[in-house]
């Protein structure tokens, strides 16, 4: 994924969380919005404690959202929608899903975009899962709301890598995306950016540890809170190395030691700081800052609500049934053989 970059400082702005519950996807079924404004001004709610005295963040949650990472250009410096605009966005989103359910996928037959199952048919449309709506116009906070520019060196590095892979995307497994190989997926975090679907997490706490499991792809980040330092900088891990500590009621997680292939390909010295604070029984306020001076000209920060869904994570065993990887490569080999035959070789 290519990222144009820009940084904004983390601004803990007032957060209005409106939870819209979407009911089962039968076409005729109406959706009843449940607006529940979270408060930044009323008496502070105090989170229950785990046995070792820390705020209890445990449970099954989702960070599903319709808010884009970067603010649409036409909104400029507008960081928040008004309540009326939010209600309008929710209405449009319901209408979009209803139309999809009635008409099927809104893509043109015979195009590459049409070659896909219908997300809504399988309950994978984002509005078929719980969304913690808020009034933000982008996940990235601040007046710009966009990624900072990349440094010239990073731009060149990313362009060179793309040029090297161009035309070779189907040569073999190593040319395929990490997610397609069931090796790593950016939504596992950090940062905990939402996945297009199955954007669910389970948080489990023990003495000296917090674990965050992402449903997709069934990976768990284990975050020690015992004050240990990071591992050696010569060790790189798919999701980096996380260490956490508590600042009052906020879990602060510091992650370094990322591979330069995930989550932001080209970032060779990524550093992510996350802050998690449970602000009401159903909401964790999640804030993050991403920096890598060798990648972006300045750090950038984002914020999104994580909302409770209860129930359980369903297993997303990825590799065992990953037929598509082999199918895709086989298809490429057949296409090559056909092209060679046509060329009369």
């Amino acid at each position, binding site marked *: 994924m290519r990222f144009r970059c820009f940084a904004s400082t983390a601004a803990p702005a007032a957060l209005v969380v409106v939870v819209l519950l979407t009911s089962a996807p039968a076409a005729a079924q109406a959706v009843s919005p449940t607006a529940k404004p979270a408060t930044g001004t009323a008496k502070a709610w105090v989170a229950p404690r785990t046995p070792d005295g820390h705020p209890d963040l445990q449970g099954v949650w989702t960070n599903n959202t319709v808010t884009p*990472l970067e603010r649409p250009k036409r909104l400029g410096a507008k960081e928040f929608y008004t309540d009326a605009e939010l209600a309008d966005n929710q209405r449009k989103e319901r209408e979009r899903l209803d139309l999809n359910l009635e008409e099927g996928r809104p893509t043109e037959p015979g195009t590459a975009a049409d070659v896909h199952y219908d997300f809504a048919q399988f309950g994978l449309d984002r509005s078929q899962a719980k969304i913690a709506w808020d009034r933000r116009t982008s996940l990235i906070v601040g007046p710009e709301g966009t990624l900072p520019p990349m440094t010239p060196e990073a731009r060149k590095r990313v362009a060179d890598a793309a040029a090297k892979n161009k035309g070779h995307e189907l040569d073999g497994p190593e040319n395929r995306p990490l997610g397609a190989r069931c090796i790593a997926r950016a939504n596992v975090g950090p940062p905990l950016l939402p996945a297009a679907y199955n954007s669910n997490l389970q948080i489990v706490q023990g003495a000296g540890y917090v674990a965050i499991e992402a449903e*997709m792809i069934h990976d768990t980040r284990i975050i020690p809170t015992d004050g240990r330092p990071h591992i050696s900088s010569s060790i790189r891990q798919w999701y980096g190395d996380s260490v956490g500590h508590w600042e009052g009621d906020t879990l602060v997680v510091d992650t370094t030691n990322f591979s330069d292939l995930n989550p932001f390909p080209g970032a060779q010295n990524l550093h992510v700081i996350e802050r998690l604070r449970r602000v009401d029984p159903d909401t964790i306020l999640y804030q993050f800052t991403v920096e890598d001076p060798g990648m972006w000209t300045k750090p950038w920060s984002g914020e999104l609500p994580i909302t409770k869904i209860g129930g359980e994570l369903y297993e997303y065993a990825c590799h065992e049934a990953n037929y598509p990887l082999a199918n895709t490569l086989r298809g490429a080999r057949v296409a090559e053989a056909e092209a060679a035959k046509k060329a009369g070789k």
Partner: protein
Amino acid sequence: MRTKLLVMMAGLGLLGAAVPVWAHHAFAAEFDQNKPLKLKGTVTKWEVTNPHSWIHIDVKGDDGQVVAWMIEGGSPNNLYRLGFTKESLPPGSEIVVEGYRAKDGSTRGVGKNVTFADGRKLFLGLQATEAGPEKK
């Protein structure tokens, strides 16, 4: 009506997902956009797996020969949350699959739209059981 859908989608750009909705793998590399297919068949099994579920069907050709196809669908995780299970598509079900054929020429396809023989949409056209933990 299809045009209306496309116009609406364009107008909703501001609500674009935080993460691109493209699949983690290139469907257009696995299946051929120039090979549309429409199959009617009987379900033999539904592989309720990730990253994709697969519906296996027996398709009887005009020559009376039965050919086994497997149709790629979506992750089943949220279907289960919405109250559907493997029993929602039992073997013996008659379904119609509109989609595209595998690029490698095998009897595999991706189902853009799957209905029962009576036209009801698969899964969503069923009476959904009361959903699990997702509904509050």
